[in-house]
């Protein structure tokens, strides 16, 4: 059952802590040339042909946004990320990148950050 209680405030300090643990990923995100060559390696993209489901798009608009805003995000933004990192990625680790960027590690961290703020896949969502 979906709870009617108001969601707790976002703990931006905790998000910053989680981001600081994996600073390497920020560097690798900054190398991404946005070439889009990773698109065809994602089975979700290949089935749905949704331009917002390519590995690079998911990483840039979830973890990339978190790094860019230094963790200062609101619940609405995290809810938007939820659809990218939980619904559109199965963490199957089959995505490739010409630079060797590990996209699924980025999605996994974005998921961890969302979960730390109580934003996660709920199977009782309406």
């Amino acid at each position, binding site marked *: 059952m979906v709870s009617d209680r108001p969601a707790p405030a976002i703990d931006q300090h905790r998000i910053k802590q989680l981001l600081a643990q*994996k*600073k*390497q*990923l920020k*560097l*690798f995100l*900054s*190398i*991404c*040339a*946005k*070439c*889009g*060559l*990773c*698109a*065809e*390696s994602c089975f979700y*993209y290949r089935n749905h*042909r949704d*331009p*917002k489901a*390519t590995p*690079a*798009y998911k990483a*840039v608009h979830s973890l990339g946004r978190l790094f860019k805003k230094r963790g200062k995000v609101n619940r609405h933004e995290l809810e938007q990320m939820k659809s990218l990192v939980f619904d559109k990625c199965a963490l199957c680790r*089959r995505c*490739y*990148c*010409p*630079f*060797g*960027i*590990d996209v699924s*590690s980025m999605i996994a961290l974005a998921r961890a950050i969302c979960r730390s703020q109580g934003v996660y896949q709920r199977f009782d969502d309406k």
Partner: protein
Amino acid sequence: MVNPSELYEFVRGPMTWLALAIFLAGSAIQLHRLFRLSARKQRRLLRAAPPKKRAPATPSLGQRMTGWRTALRRSVLGRHPLLIGLTVLFHTLLFITPLFARGHQVLLYDAWRFSLPSFVEPLTDALTVAVISCAAVFLGRRLFSAPVRALSGVTDFLLLGITVAPFVTGWLAFRQIGPYPQIIIAHMLSGQLMLIALGVTKLGHMIFFFFTRLGINSEHSLAAGSRTW
């Protein structure tokens, strides 16, 4: 009003050194950051079970071919052979065309009494056109391929422009199209802008590519891999 010849001397002299210094310092800082952040390896949490001891079976040629085909199909090369070919060509020419251009070697000889071998001019001309054509294909992808368009921001178009501008202006100068003094100054300035961008923007992948792909022991590098995060 700035005197064109004074501007030319400034762009040829101090401005070149400044661009080179920013490129070298920016690259050194970025590389230092890359190594500092990748030095600590994460302990491996899972290990593959040791292989069972069996008499070694020699795979047939057919089995080997299937293995290779599967590996190729899963790689970016197998999925987009044409685009990868074009990318390799583009990046190789970006480097060798200006390096072996006759005009550049003449300038080098004038300055330091030293020069490298150079391509004949029609070859440099053809290679420049090839670079511009490759860039046009990449621009087309950014504009018309839905997944790439969704990813692209203003910076990505700008960086493509910065990369190709020295080649366009160089080609115009060589063909003597337009006012030569202004075009040659624009050529030098755009080259310096590219050099600066190599040091401070994501164009730094010129250097990073080799480290991320070969040097750093991460899971996806071609060197022996273990996760660094």
